[in-house]
């Protein structure tokens, strides 16, 4: 399991990529949902 997270020594590069991508998409979904709620009424 820790081997998996270590990514053969490339943990920062691999998880840095996936983490930021996930954060960006989550933020966009949050913002667009917020905008949808605010324009609903």
């Amino acid at each position, binding site marked *: 399991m820790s081997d*998996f997270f270590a*990514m*053969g*020594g*490339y943990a*920062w*590069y*691999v998880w*840095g*990529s*996936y983490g*930021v*991508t996930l954060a*960006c*998409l989550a933020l*966009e*979904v949050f913002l*667009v*949902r917020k*905008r*949808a709620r605010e*324009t*609903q009424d």
Partner: protein
Amino acid sequence: MKWFWYASPQTFYPLAGTIARGSGIAAALLAAAGLYIGFFVAPTDAQQGEAYRIIFIHVPAAWMSMFIYVVMACWAALGLALNTRLSGMMASALAPTGALFTFIALWTGSLWGKPTWGTYWVWDARLTSELILLFLYLGFMSLQAAIDDPRRADRAGALLAIVGVVNIPIIHYSVVWWNTLHQGASVSVTRAPTMAATMLTGMLLMALAFWAYSIAVSMVRVRCIIRERGG
């Protein structure tokens, strides 16, 4: 199919909601399958080790960044030519998602470049033209935000979007035209891919997931714009 019937924002509104729901579910399922194959099925790369696994988001994000721009410019051109209201709304709805994927492509490329080339950034043709794409998206968005009248904002944005299309073939062919540090295309429609089948499958699943995600988010956003502009 009655295309012009759907060209009206009011009639498109409920359809956009249905498309958003379906695409959102498809995006989640495709991403789950793509990530499973990308991390647990695809083998470790002989040259790049585990670092290559960035490919499963980097390449699909780069594809989306260019594809969304072309779609956005097509909507913008359609709006200019036919003066349909929905076209400009679609272009505005796509821009933030396109900018996001451009940023993701640059970010993941940078984190891939460090272990493979030894640097986070170089001013080579591929990286520079992709950075220009990000500025085109941001320019389009700030230009539209600066103009109060939405129809005028649509027309001004459309001109910028159409002129900027010239950058897309430059990004695509940059690795052929110039001697770039960035590698050439690993996948092409005219020849066999230069990577293992499981790697390719994972990458294509992630590309489809990003595609479905982009449709879902831009459909929700276009519904917001339709409401904000009073239907």
